[in-house]
């Protein structure tokens, strides 16, 4: 087991569309420890999305080393990456992306079902998590019957319920009003503190930047800043790469 939740070394990625080459990441090195509550920030095109894609095993880097939860992603097959995502990584998407045909509870237990967990245990876990994050009583509602904030909390529950080592959240507050955004950040921070799960956001939202314990700034595919908030130390000490 690596001492790092995420370790990147000189990661490079260039997108090619015909003769046009667009460098997205230009030698990113980064280490994030277990239990950190970190955010990447930067303007559009800075490489935030590509970075999260590569860390989540959704895309592959051209060169460099990517270690997540102790595994070298560059040598894993597509099936092994799918297994890693299912067992070790949780995702929270900007547009919630709940399955519209499933209820809130069914959405939250989706990944547990894929893991093959028995029904009673699944239900117990989801209901406990729902009561912790203020979703009790909404189990049987379909996504269309929930507010944006509630949907995003269901998405967080879906990501958290498998107790992953890492949660990647892409602009999770982008579609929420301020009150809902604050409530969501409260939930995630509380989960981070209580479970020690590592959180990595990408964001434009000043509220998220303020609440992050560590802020990594990106520009033109390179890290231009990496600061830890003195007043909000992560549960586990961080070492810069």
């Amino acid at each position, binding site marked *: 087991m690596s001492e790092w939740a995420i370790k990147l070394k000189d990661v490079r990625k260039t997108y090619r569309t015909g003769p046009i080459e667009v460098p997205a990441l230009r030698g990113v090195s980064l280490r994030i420890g277990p239990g950190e509550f970190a955010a990447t920030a930067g303007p559009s095109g800075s490489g935030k*999305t590509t970075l999260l*894609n590569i860390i989540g095993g959704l*895309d592959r880097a051209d060169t460099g080393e990517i270690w997540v939860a102790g595994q070298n992603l560059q040598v894993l097959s597509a099936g092994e990456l799918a297994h890693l995502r299912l067992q070790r990584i949780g995702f929270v998407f900007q547009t919630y992306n709940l399955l519209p*045909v*499933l209820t809130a509870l069914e959405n939250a237990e989706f*990944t547990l079902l*894929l893991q093959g*967990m028995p029904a009673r245990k699944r239900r117990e876990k989801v209901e406990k998590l729902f009561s912790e994050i203020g979703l009790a009583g909404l189990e049987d509602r379909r996504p269309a019957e929930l507010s944006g904030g509630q949907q995003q909390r269901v998405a967080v529950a879906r990501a958290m319920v498998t107790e992953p080592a890492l949660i990647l959240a892409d602009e999770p507050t982008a579609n929420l009003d301020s009150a809902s955004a604050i409530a969501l950040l409260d939930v995630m921070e509380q989960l981070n503190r209580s479970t020690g799960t590592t959180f990595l956001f990408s964001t434009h939202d000043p509220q998220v930047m303020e609440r992050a314990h560590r802020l990594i700034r990106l520009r033109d595919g390179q890290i231009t800043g990496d600061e830890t908030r003195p007043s909000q130390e992560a549960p586990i000490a961080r070492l810069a790469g």
Partner: protein
Amino acid sequence: MTSLFLLVKISWRNLWRNPRGTLLTALALGLGLALLLISLGLLDGGHEQTIADGVRFGPGHVVVQAKGYQDSGSDELLLPAQVVSNIEGFLQKATIKHFVRGVSPRLLATGLLSSSASSAGVRIVGVIPEEERQVSLIPQRMVQGTYLTSDNKIAGVVVGDELARKLELKIGSKAVLMTQALRQPATANGTGDADEMQSTLLRVSGIFRTGLQAIDANMIYVPMSAAQALLGVTGDQVTQVTLLLVREGDSPMVARRLRTQLAKDPVEVLTWRESLPMLAHILGLDHAFNYIMNGVILSMVGLGILNTILMRVLERRYEFGVTKALGLRPRQLAVMVVGESLALTAISLALGLVLGLSVQHYFATAGLDLRWVFKAGLPPALVFDPILYSRLSMDRIVWSVSIVFAMATIISFYPALKAARTDLPDALKVL
């Protein structure tokens, strides 16, 4: 197993995200199945009627005749009397008796029938009236007078309505039948009767109408004894023995057993497919044409289904990307799409069966009246009742459902493959 249950649940619920679209697609596929069932029912019903009528106006399901008669058509080729009694004896056996509805010996010849008004060439059929009633449809198609009976066997004749009109014959009219005495190999040993013209006076006892010009204008039926006397045939020889079976499908088996029984005799045993090759050919062509038409209909429906499922898959590319990102494997995604397609197919099959079998039931009881199509008369080669009654066997239903199910399943593979190959970075552009 639990994840399979989840996939099936998602598939089923996905279907009802757009109920109208789902029902329209199901209706399209269901209509394809219904059309298949209706057309097969009418085809099989039509063929069954055509065969039933064809064999009962003609040589029966199975016919035994002298070797070479089918090819030469020579009236001089007769079945010896002991062969006829051998056949009749064999058909009385318990092992074969229950397959046979009726047996009728016939003596066939060509002659000239003259009335006071005119003359016409005719095909003479000498029959034993009681036995012919069990085999032929002619006794049921009398429009005037009565069919032959043993009482009027000396002078009775039954003619078709077209011939009666041409010769201006009415019930009780007298007509002279002239023919050439047959050259019989068994008796042509100096009796001097062969090749001589013979004639006899007949009285019209009945007029029939089949709707088939070839029969109504040419065929006349006379008692066997009168025909034998006219043709100079002795010793109960006949041209053929016709068999009407309980089930048409038994024809090959009965023919095979008769061939075995008569292996030493100079005879040929033919099923209706061999004795009426043109009818068999027409029905075969009709079958082939129908299969092609059904293939075209199903292909068009299939393309519609493919388009619909593909559109559903493409619309949900982002959703598939999300589920894949959450850890759903490509194979599971494919199962989900195939499951959705199969659920859609199940609804379609239910709709198609209800619709198809309802219409089929109507045509099976009320019939499809095609008389308006054949106002000008039926084609001469076709023995055809213009009111079609649908007949659909369980085998046909199972076959049709299987074909549509297999088609829908195969069609779903491409969209399923497309879903399974959802490219994650592209599908999840937001992340």
